[in-house]
């Protein structure tokens, strides 16, 4: 029964996507809406991404330094460890999980509230494809802007690691920078950005899906918001595994 309802849910999700990716009623209005969503879902996430990244970069540096007991291991590996951790996993997957919480719950509760207060019905009555009008600008905004958040996270995280490393004396600036540049594989950035784009799509569409199908009142909106975050997180982890195997094997 659970498998059947999961298949049914997936079918509903695909049907919603079909509705979302239909021809917009008026491109100009959609464009303006996309700009608003970039501000709301993207720019307003810069702060949290910066704070978390700087602290994570710092912690990774300290943990790497304090676990390097063998004197034959060069200290510059601290910089390398921080760089690769930030590039490969943190700036895409962990930031994705954090955005699933922040942006995902925002999207699900906004659309869910619009559903229970009949605002979506009002759009439909006007002859507007409500799914496309409400969800497409959010998808475009996050898919476009989240890679910038990911790049910001990489830069700020590596900088945070450097600052704390130098401040606590576990690594010198020269050693850290040597490590950051050592055996650098540019494809890691492409890999992280591909993951970020896929995660942005998953977060937005899954959260919008749960918000759009809300029935009832505020209790159901809250439940949909929680489900959106949980399911987005699960699918981020699942796709992280799939994409890593596909792109790095």
């Amino acid at each position: 029964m659970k498998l059947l309802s999961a298949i049914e849910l997936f079918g509903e999700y695909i049907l919603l996507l079909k509705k979302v990716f239909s021809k917009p009623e008026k491109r100009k209005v959609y464009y303006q809406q996309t700009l608003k969503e970039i501000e709301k879902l993207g720019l307003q996430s810069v702060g949290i991404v910066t704070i978390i990244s700087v602290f994570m970069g710092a912690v990774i540096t300290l943990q790497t330094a304090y676990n390097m007991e063998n004197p034959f291991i060069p200290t510059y590996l601290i910089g390398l460890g921080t760089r690769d951790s930030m590039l490969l996993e943190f700036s895409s997957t962990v930031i994705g999980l954090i955005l699933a919480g922040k942006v995902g719950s925002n999207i699900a509760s906004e659309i869910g509230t619009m559903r229970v207060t009949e605002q979506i019905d009002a759009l439909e009555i006007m002859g507007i494809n409500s799914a496309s009008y409400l969800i497409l600008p959010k998808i475009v905004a996050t898919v476009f802007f989240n890679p910038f958040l990911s790049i910001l996270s990489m830069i700020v995280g590596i900088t945070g690691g450097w600052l704390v490393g130098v401040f606590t004396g576990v690594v010198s600036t020269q050693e850290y920078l040597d490590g950051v540049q050592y055996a650098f594989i540019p494809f890691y950035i492409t890999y992280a950005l591909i993951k970020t784009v896929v995660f942005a799509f998953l977060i937005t569409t899954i959260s919008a899906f749960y918000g759009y199908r809300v029935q009832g009142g505020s209790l159901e909106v809250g439940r949909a918001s929680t489900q959106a975050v949980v399911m987005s997180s699960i699918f981020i982890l699942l796709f992280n595994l799939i994409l890593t195997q596909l792109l790095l094997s």
Partner: protein
Amino acid sequence: MIVVNDLCKSFDGRLVLDSITATFEKGKTNLIIGQSGSGKTVLLKCIVGLHEIDGGVIFYNDTRFDNLDFNQKKKIRQKIGMLFQGAALFDSATVEENVMFPLDMFTEMTHEEKLERVNFCLKRVNILNSNHLYPAEISGGMKKRVAIARAIALNPEFLFCDEPNSGLDPKTAVVIDQLIKEITEEYNITTIINTHDMNSVMGIGDKVIFIHQGKKWWEGSKDNILDSDNKELNEFVFSTELTRKIKGL
């Protein structure tokens, strides 16, 4: 004019509307009355196409509406204005943006022309100097009036009102009723109002349809509602102590 023939609708096997046949006339306020749960909101939502019907036909003037696809329905929906029970104004938009929204979506007017139309509609519903307020900043009565202004922005041929007086004090309720009646007559609109407010019925009921247990139980005007010998209608109309005394029951 809107004609409904043999309309049936059920949810999970439970028949909610049973062979409803009715004609809603142009330039008149057509009221659907009935107890909570009698099926009147479902009937309204079936007529505007928010619910798919199980049987019967719906005509908007000479066009059969129920078998049209989404894009074909869009053309008719652009001639529809709807006032929802909770007003259903867009929370993130100001009063002015709410009324301008249908103009943005469906006209090629310049911003000045749209603004002129918005101000005309707001003036028509007696909303002055509130263009830049958000729905959360205005009263329930004002919200209803803004929703009416949005509903008439595109000069609709059909106006639907779901419980327009719910949550309003009796004085404001009369103002909203009169406004709907004036607009209906001024623009020769086919107006359908869902209500269980007997003051509305006696004030503006050009044509009244009584729905009971999903069936059309009685049809007439406000003038002959008091003289009807229909038992269920009398139980509904004269349900309060005051009205029973007036009727001499």
